[in-house]
């Protein structure tokens, strides 16, 4: 074994130092090293699609828990789906931060009501909220429904309430929404295709 001068010096100094210190009664606990524990080891993986832009990157969402009855799943990490042909596991800055979207402090949690002129929200129940919406719609529809136009043609339209559909809701939601909206004769109907 070839020992350079520098190594020799190091070794002798170390030897000397540590032996003298050991004599003083110290012994350093061996400093153990490890990488951070791999946090996805037993998470539940769910396939999803990024809700932002129309590239529609594939996602894998990692949830706490294993779907056991007594565990409430909570998503704690989202990364790209490597099998997805378009994004191949990549995500853009928005998509890479989706977990903070899911857990945004601005997520709505309860139906709320703001009375005319009020400056605050009031929490209400789903039944109150939906019944009120249905009543408001019916009231307006019954008052303003146009069955026939000036020329006497059947038009069966309702133009005093409009509906703006979402841009990131699923096709299934969109389909049901369209079905419901058109059944009322509503014409003011738009989505975010334009903006």
């Amino acid at each position, binding site marked *: 074994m070839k020992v350079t001068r520098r190594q020799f010096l190091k070794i002798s100094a170390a030897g000397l*130092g540590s032996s003298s*210190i050991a004599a003083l009664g110290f012994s350093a606990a061996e400093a153990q090293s490890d990488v951070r524990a791999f946090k996805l080891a037993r998470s539940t993986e769910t396939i999803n699609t990024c809700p932002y832009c129309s590239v529609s990157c594939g996602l894998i969402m990692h949830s706490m828990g294993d779907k056991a009855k007594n565990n409430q799943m909570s998503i704690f990490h989202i990364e790209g789906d490597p099998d997805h042909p378009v994004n191949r596991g990549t995500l853009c800055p928005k998509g890479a931060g989706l977990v903070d979207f899911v857990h945004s402090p601005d997520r709505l949690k309860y139906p709320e009501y703001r009375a005319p002129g009020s400056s605050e929200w009031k929490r209400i129940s789903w039944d109150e909220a939906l019944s009120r919406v249905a009543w408001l719609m019916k009231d307006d529809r019954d008052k303003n429904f146009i069955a026939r136009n000036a020329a006497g043609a059947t038009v069966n339209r309702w133009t005093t309430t409009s509906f703006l559909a979402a841009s990131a809701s699923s096709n299934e939601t969109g389909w049901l929404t369209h079905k419901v909206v058109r059944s009322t004769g509503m014409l003011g109907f738009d989505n975010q295709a334009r903006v």
Partner: protein
Amino acid sequence: MKNDPDRLPRYTASERANHWLVALTFFLAALSGLAFFHPVFYPLGQLFGGGVWARILHPFFGVAILFFFSSMYLRFRKLCVMTPADWDWLRHVREMIRGDDRDMPESGKLNGGQKLLFWLLAACMALLVLSGIVIWRAYFSPLFPEGLIRFAAIVHAAAGVFMVGLIFGHIYIAIWTRESIDAMIYGKVRRAWAKQHHPAWFREMTGENK
């Protein structure tokens, strides 16, 4: 012993207290500092509650030693002015180490070695304090450029280890020179001791001109 008429007063109580406060803080600073100097000394950090505490406390020890050392500096700086005789004394110091003090020039209350030590320690302290501020990450480092921090780190390490060396020497000489510790503990020394080690001072104190 305190009132022993045979004994000559050498250091006042406050001087002694000051010295020992410096000594104490020096030990704290040195032991904690050595922990970062080289891995072999790292376990010294255990004295202070581990590496983190050593890192936290070390600069404060530095502040403390700065405070006490400054006081000591003010007390002794006049006394430590080097004279030609002191330089002459230093030129002969080898002989004394060898155990042959016959030709040693007469020293006053403090000999040339002690005076030189004083000035070297003062210089180390200045360097340590200045460089220490630069590398004190928690408060001051962000104010300085990285190049200066690097330089300061070397200065601090070099000055620190040099100072430790000086104090090593100081302690050994104090041990080797019997009874000199008495001076710092009791403040008084035997006349014989004084005559042997500090003849000029002895004469000054006793008025003898032997």
